[in-house]
């Protein structure tokens, strides 16, 4: 063979090798946003990732302005201000969130209650200085907690709280709804690989660019440096977690946190965290209701919802999970 041909071939080979070395993993577009009193981290891959993420953030802002408990002009605030008065006209989005919240209340037999507002306000976890209300104050507030007295008219598109003193708190449901919409926008923009982390709520699109599934760490409720479980989202795309470590204070050896039992008006003391793990397209389920019900009752209830998996961390840090997660989860104990 001609020496020049060998040299040319070698040159092409070396050129290809050089550039193969330059081809490193694709870079994600990352953005952090604040909404509904939580932080939302978005990681997205693709040539138009930045534009797609910005569009999803615009949708987040739009929906937050309807659904927030913290915004003076939101529709939820309007319903709360009119409690005991006339019905309030609401958008389709608010109607969908309230419908979902009432469905949660029904299926959990009140372990989730969207009218928990007066109890949330009374305790003011994270807003007041380590305040523990008296039993009398709790009883008085509990009189205004009853999801049967939230009237939703899907024909006239109105909502009404029947008693003055009632208020809606659907922060968790609204967060899930907003994340679902953000995910839908990213997909519509052609994004095939993304991760949204809204505190205790995770949504993923596809796998990572290298083809491996997204891997999610579940924070150890009692050790901020520790991880209780690592879950590979090889079959699922949605995890929601509620825990007694997210907003809390400790007083005289008792943990007071932000998830309340609607029957007692006090923070739950069953589990330190509970997560639901869902496949794409499945109806959401409120993870905070699992904290109210405790592990045994939750497992019993979840039998009615085949396909929903769950992870429980008890008050001593022991981790357990439903059988469907076997092979996709590693736990610290």
């Amino acid at each position, binding site marked *: 063979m001609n*020496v020049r041909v060998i*040299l040319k071939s*070698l*040159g092409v*080979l*070396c*050129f290809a*090798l*050089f*550039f*193969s*070395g*330059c081809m*490193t993993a694709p870079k994600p577009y990352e*953005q*952090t*946003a*604040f909404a509904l*009193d*939580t*932080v939302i*981290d978005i*990681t997205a891959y693709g040539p138009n990732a930045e534009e797609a993420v910005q569009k999803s953030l615009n949708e987040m802002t739009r929906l937050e302005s309807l659904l927030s408990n913290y915004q003076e002009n939101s529709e939820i605030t309007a319903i709360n201000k009119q409690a005991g008065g006339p019905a309030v006209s609401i958008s389709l989005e608010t109607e969908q969130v309230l419908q979902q919240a009432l469905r949660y209340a029904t299926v959990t037999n009140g372990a989730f209650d969207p009218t928990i507002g007066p109890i949330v306000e009374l305790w003011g*976890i*994270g*807003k*007041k*200085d380590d305040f523990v209300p008296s039993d009398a104050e709790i009883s008085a507030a509990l009189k205004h907690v009853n999801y049967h007295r939230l009237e939703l008219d899907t024909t006239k598109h109105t909502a009404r709280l029947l008693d003055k003193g009632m208020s809606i708190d659907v922060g968790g449901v609204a967060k899930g709804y907003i994340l679902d919409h953000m995910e839908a926008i990213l997909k519509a923009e052609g994004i095939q690989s993304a*991760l949204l*982390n809204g*505190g*205790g709520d*995770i949504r993923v699109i596809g796998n*990572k660019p290298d083809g491996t599934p*997204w*891997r*999610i*760490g*579940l*924070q150890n409720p009692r050790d*901020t*440096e520790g*991880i209780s479980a*690592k879950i590979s989202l090889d079959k699922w795309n949605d*995890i929601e*977690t509620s825990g007694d470590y*997210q*907003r*809390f204070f400790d007083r005289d050896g008792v943990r007071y946190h932000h998830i309340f039992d609607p029957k007692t008006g006090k923070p739950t003391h069953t589990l330190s965290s509970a*997560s639901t793990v869902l496949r794409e397209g499945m109806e959401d389920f409120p993870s905070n209701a699992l904290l109210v019900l405790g592990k045994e009752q939750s497992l019993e209830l979840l039998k009615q919802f085949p396909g929903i998996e769950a992870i429980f961390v008890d008050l001593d840090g022991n981790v357990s999970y439903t059988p469907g997660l076997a092979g996709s989860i590693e736990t610290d104990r």
Partner: protein
Amino acid sequence: MLTWGDRILIALLVICSLAGIALPFFSQSAAAQSEAVISVAGKVVKTVKLDGHQEQLTIDGDSGYNIVQIEGKQVRVIESNCPDQLCVKQGWISRSPQQIVCLPNRIVVKIIHGKSSDVDTIMR
């Protein structure tokens, strides 16, 4: 027959191609130095190498301040004027992708690179 010029050319091409493969590994190991990225309302305001030095930084957030302490390869918030004090209660973090969030002040301290937790994100 290969001349000396041909041999030098071949050697140069082989060295260049190997450098092309090796370069990203070297640049990755250089970037693997653990860092704390501090952002306010989503905008990065400070990136600090966790190289063993000690430092205290006062970060002005949306509605108040956080004092961030760096010691060795770990970082924590030691003071904040926020009402819930969750950022202070969280304590030290040292592994990627852990982060401390002060919601009222919209300050986030995040560890990148360095010792990894072997997960893409942590559910808080």
